[in-house]
């Protein structure tokens, strides 16, 4: 019963969490691994997470926290055959101009946007989730939206040019 409950939670919330983490990290390739890891943690502590006032926020917060140190300690990539260490990054199904604009935002602004836009959290809950003041959330959001609007307008103008 408990597992069914978790599975339903996962199926209903996974896409929203993935989109939030994708925006929060700016990394389409890590996002799914991070979210999967966060859900696994949620299942291992399901009674606690289920009772959380905002379980989706818990998952996204966990994934974003994990992102800070997880990748380096989880695996290390090296280049062989005369190649560089960094893998080629691909973005599938996401507007590249939008992703580029998101990546240019400071981390905190990305996280605020992620929680407000994709989890529909209010200012208070966003502030609690990120451990910052509500006023800071409002300020981050306003700056992020202004930057995104400007960047996207530029991208649209450039696309329209011959």
């Amino acid at each position, binding site marked *: 019963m408990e597992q069914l409950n978790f599975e339903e939670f996962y199926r209903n919330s996974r896409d929203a969490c993935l*989109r939030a983490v994708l925006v929060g990290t700016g990394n389409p390739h890590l996002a799914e691994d991070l979210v*999967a890891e966060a859900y*696994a943690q*949620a299942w291992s502590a399901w009674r606690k997470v289920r009772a959380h006032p905002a379980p989706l926020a818990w998952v996204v917060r966990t994934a974003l926290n994990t992102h800070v140190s997880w990748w380096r300690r989880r695996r*290390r990539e090296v280049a062989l*055959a005369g190649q560089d260490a960094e893998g080629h990054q691909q973005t599938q199904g996401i507007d590249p101009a939008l992703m580029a604009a998101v990546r240019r935002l400071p981390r905190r602004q990305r996280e605020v946007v992620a929680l407000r836009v994709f989890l529909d959290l209010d200012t208070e809950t966003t502030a609690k989730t990120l451990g910052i003041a509500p006023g800071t959330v409002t300020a981050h959001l306003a700056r992020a939206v202004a930057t995104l609007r400007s960047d996207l307008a530029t991208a649209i103008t450039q696309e329209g040019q011959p």
Partner: protein
Amino acid sequence: MNDVFDIMRESMEGVHMHTPVERIVAAGRARRRRKVTAIAAGAAVAGGLTLAVATSSPQVNAPPAGLHVQLAAFSVDSNADGTVTVKLTKEQTLDPATLESTLAQAGIPADIRINEFCQSPVDIPGFDKVMSSSKDEDGRHVVMTIDPAAMPAGTKIIAGIRTPGYLPDNPSKLGAVFGLAHVGDTLQCSTELPR
């Protein structure tokens, strides 16, 4: 503000989580099991039980002194400080079984695969303390230093190595990927290059 939010939401509509719930549940269950084991071990120590350690038996992950193996595709050298230096030669396809057995002699359990890339079903912290890598000065080798003593108990190194001609149309520049996994865990493997 809403116009920007709408654009973002629309742009992400095609983004979906593909990880099956069964994999999530299995990873969560493994995590829970490990937590229980750790608590049980802690309780045994707290209860004043003596954990008997046979000091005469070989220590796990203790490299024998002076192991030096030099082959065309790789070399393995144990160092005085207990670390082990592994040098892989670019453009050379190595035999994974030979590298595994050589690493085992150096006190490093390993699962080496060619053109198959695996990851542990659970996150194992501390890999940055286990392994460091750097390019050799001549650019023909990749040199890694592994500290077997830093490997969490019951873990092994997992490595996926891409041969020079593998998936030539794939633009990824990845040559090899290394990580940690618990011995006995079922690895999540793919012949696709890791993202």
